[in-house]
């Protein structure tokens, strides 16, 4: 909670609405979203399936234009994707014609960084995701969890201002998932990254976030935002103890109630 003291706004979403399709066949996916993402925050977004979480992420990334309202990044309107906003997809979109090394180096290379620097960055982040030994492999030789770690390293290699993640661990088994959660939490802490993270797993949200945004069913609106600090407690104590504390269940039940009310 100490970080909250010196808030520095990074992304501002103003009165954003998004409609897919034309007139009769249109779907209102997002309705009047207002959200501010501050530097260094770990925001998790929860909500029932189809509520527009991915759509919101695509608006922030610049993949789609909102029907009304705006996404501002440091005061400037987002207009198309760029490397300041890195994206990790649910299924890792690694390029199979490149090795792991080349995948991770892709971003820095596109930005024409000097060769030596590219190599240092690549080594640092592959080490950060515990894949130092796998650099010469092709990505189809890796397991699902390893692929997602490469995807994370590839995005981080650009030192983006914010990392947008759309259910990045959704396809992984429970054990790998827990490891990945620890990994991303440590990376966030070490590199002072800002993360916007979509999940449909309440525990995942509570174990990672500073702030949990809960959305309504379609059309997606923000119902409530919870400030939590379990992720900081985990740094101090370790995951198991946090799960068995009363505060945790109180917040979790509250969120579950909201979501269940939405589904009924």
């Amino acid at each position, binding site marked *: 909670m100490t970080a909250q003291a010196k808030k520095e706004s990074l992304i501002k979403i103003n009165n954003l609405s998004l409609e897919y399709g034309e007139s009769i066949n249109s779907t209102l996916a997002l309705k009047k979203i207002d959200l501010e993402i501050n530097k260094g925050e770990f925001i998790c977004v929860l909500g029932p399936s189809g509520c527009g979480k991915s759509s919101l992420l695509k608006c922030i990334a610049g993949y789609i234009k909102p029907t009304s309202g705006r996404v501002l990044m440091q005061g400037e309107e987002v207009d198309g*994707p760029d490397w300041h906003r890195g994206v990790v997809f649910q299924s890792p*979109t690694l390029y199979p014609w490149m090795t792991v090394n080349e995948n991770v180096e892709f971003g820095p290379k596109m930005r024409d960084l000097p060769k030596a620097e590219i190599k240092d960055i690549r080594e640092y982040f592959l080490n950060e995701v515990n894949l130092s030994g796998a650099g010469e492999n092709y990505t189809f030789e890796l397991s699902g969890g390893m692929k997602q770690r490469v995807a994370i390293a590839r995005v981080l290699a650009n030192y983006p201002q914010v990392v947008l993640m759309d259910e990045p661990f959704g396809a992984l088994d429970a054990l790998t998932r827990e490891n990945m959660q620890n990994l991303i939490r440590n990376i966030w802490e070490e590199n002072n990254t800002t993360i916007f993270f979509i999940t449909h797993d309440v525990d995942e949200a509570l174990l990672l976030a500073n702030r949990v945004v809960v959305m309504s069913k379609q059309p997606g609106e923000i119902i409530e935002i919870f400030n939590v600090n379990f992720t900081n407690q985990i740094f101090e104590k370790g995951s198991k103890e946090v799960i068995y504390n009363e505060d945790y269940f109180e917040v979790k039940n509250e969120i579950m109630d909201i979501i269940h009310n939405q589904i009924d």
Partner: protein
Amino acid sequence: MALNNKNAEKQDNNSSAQAANQNISRKTAENKKTKTEKALTILTWGSIFLIWYVITRLGIFTPTLLPGPARVWKAFLRILENGYNGVPIWVHLGASFKRLFVAIFFAISTAVPLGLLSGYFDKIEAVLDSVVEFYRPLPPLAYYTLLILWFGIDDTSKQILLFLAAFAPIYIACVSAVRKLNQDFVLSAKSLGANQKDVFLKIVLPASLPEIFTGIRTAFGVAYTTLVSSEMVAATSGIGWMVLDASNFLKSDVIFVGIIIMGITGVIIDAGLRFLERKIIFWKGHI
């Protein structure tokens, strides 16, 4: 993988040149053959030779019309040694292959960029697509006569003919490859800082390679049949011309030799292409 194969076969069947393509599609299906399947293939060819032999033995046709295997073999050795009409067989094959490879080279180097650009930019497609769609279904020999009038009977008209025949399948494969491209590849590249040109060269091009290769293999098939038929219409050299010339003199053993050589070279070319494909697109099926 299975889907890819099906597509490849579909394209093959659609194209106008069928004889050569049957080679291609059969080969595609043979990718993973077991011992029994191999034995079956060998058995088939054994039976074909046996039936051939029995028919010639029975004397249903005169040997001038249907020469037996032994006669064809002798003709083959004779042609190997003395050539045909005093010109070595290698010169005939070389003349044919020069036409084929020059045409394919130009077809690849124009159809790939134009096809990819057409898939990427709708405006370029609006310019090119209708023209390709118009001439593609035409039998190449239909406009060959025009080409001969304009460019003469030499290699130029043949190379242009083969170029046109090979261009369409490659172009169409490239357009469809870009259309089917996983958009997340493009989006993730842009989010990593890639500009339009980088996206095109580093993402769109490699991601389209599997389909481009299928297109090139189809193009080879089409160009090869077109080549042989064009040499039968107007030429003074080449393997197709050799067969035509032999038929004028009723040398059916030479016709057999010519046809067998064409068949075998077709299979060898396709095997070479598939070998290249495995080397270059080692990641195929993992996309």
